[in-house]
């Protein structure tokens, strides 16, 4: 009994010290709020040796679109964004896709038994069409956006313009306009 009491006291003391120990842990840094993309456009960085100030030139039409998108609070999320941020919708879409393919298989098998060649041929044709279309689309998929910015440092040195895609994001706070360029550190020759 005495032994149990001492053991219990020791465990309680250990747990209490753990609380104090956790109390000394620094507060986690607030995770930076992710900016909300409201608009996609293009950006051209042009070095100008004659200018005294950096300038941001926006066409009237683009400004109108940005204003409209901003007023719309970014507008509705795209299909891809919506699905990415909603696991429920992804699961349900996947479930129904599974059911569709399963029941289509049953129907396909039954149609084959009834020698409904036209229907079978139509399904096969559609499947082949979508398959080929998918291959073509994937094969023609463009390179990732950062590729176009890889030559920016060299282009700036050479005084040449560089163009690429740009997402306009709205972030919280009152800071200066920030331009984030996706540059990848590529190993130079002889560094490997």
């Amino acid at each position, binding site marked *: 009994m005495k032994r149990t009491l001492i053991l219990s006291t020791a465990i309680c003391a250990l747990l209490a010290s753990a609380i104090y120990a956790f109390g000394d842990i620094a507060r986690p840094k607030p995770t930076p709020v992710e900016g909300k993309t409201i608009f996609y456009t293009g950006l051209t960085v042009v070095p100008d040796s004659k200018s005294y100030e950096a300038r941001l030139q926006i066409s009237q039409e683009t400004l109108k679109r940005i204003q409209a998108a901003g007023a719309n609070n970014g507008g*509705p999320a795209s299909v891809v964004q919506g699905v990415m941020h909603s696991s429920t*919708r992804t699961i*349900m879409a996947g479930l*129904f896709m599974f*059911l*569709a393919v399963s029941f289509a298989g049953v129907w396909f098998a*039954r149609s084959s038994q009834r020698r409904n060649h036209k229907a079978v041929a139509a399904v096969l044709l559609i499947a082949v069409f979508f398959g080929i279309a998918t291959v073509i689309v994937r094969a023609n998929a463009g390179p990732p956006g950062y590729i176009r910015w890889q030559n920016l440092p060299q282009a700036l040195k050479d005084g040449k313009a560089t163009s690429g895609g740009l997402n306009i994001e709205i972030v919280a706070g009152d800071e200066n306009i920030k331009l984030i360029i996706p540059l990848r550190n590529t190993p130079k020759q002889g560094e490997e």
Partner: protein
Amino acid sequence: MERTANIPLAAWPFARPADRTRVSARLFAALLVASACVSAALASWLPLQVSIVTVFLFAGPHNWFELRYFLMRLPARMGRSRNFFAVAFAGIGVLTLGYLALPALYYTNVWSGENWPLAIATWNTLLLLWLAALVILRGRQNSSRDWSWALPAAFGLCAVNWLAPDLFSLAIVYLHPLVALWFLDRHLRRTRSEWLRTYRRCLLLLPLLMAGMFWQLSGTPSLADDNGLAWRITQHAGGQLLPNVSTHLLVSMHVFLEMLHYGVWIIALPLIGATGAIWSTKTIPLARRHGGFPKFIAAILICSLFVVAVLWMGFTVNYAATRDLYFAVAMAHVLAEAPFLLRMI
């Protein structure tokens, strides 16, 4: 006496049945083409104004004509169609109540706006499964049909719906007016089969007109939706869901399709006799049959006329609120078209 075969027919306009048919088909085609072109021109020119006027004038009456048409197509005795109509009416009731409950639950803060797509997707899923059930039940009424493809097709559409529920609902808004053209096709096949080919040729004009509207209006600036009514109309046409598309184009396209829809129900179908004499209940099987309900059917039609009048009064007093209410309740007639169209196929 001169033989009848030798009497010159040139002086008698459309004396031969074939000539009469050809001329009436031409007149029918000319009316169709003219109506479609005028509708497209008006919808493109003044989309907001035409939308307001057409909904005010025709929304109620076209529902009355649809109700009369559905009563006429309802068999006097269900017989083998009992299950089909049971599922049809249960679905219309449940889905309409569900559709009306969505905004009510939203405004009473039962769920947040973030869950809105889930609610819409759920409702769309129920709609698709109900349609699949109707198609399968209808297919079973004829042993030569195998309409079991409806289930995988419905599941496939459900998957698409869960990926983009808002866009799926918008697709229903644009596709629903086209269902009226399908009804007209079915009726011409039954009653004026000689016009069917002409009608189908005229239908080819529809994608051309839509492509022309797209070409003309895609570059136009969006409509000024600075007042509540204009905002409602642009939102109904998908202005928020398709921010990169001019709302002028969206509203024009929607108004054009709605005008065709109203034209078919109010003018075309009654003209070819699909709805029978509108003042007579004798063409309605439920009223005509032995032991039927002629007074009840007449009461329904008369009460519906009062509802149309009340709708006009509502539009006059508060157009925007009445329009919102109408488009919510009108989901019932959108749903009711499905089983009656299936009965025609």
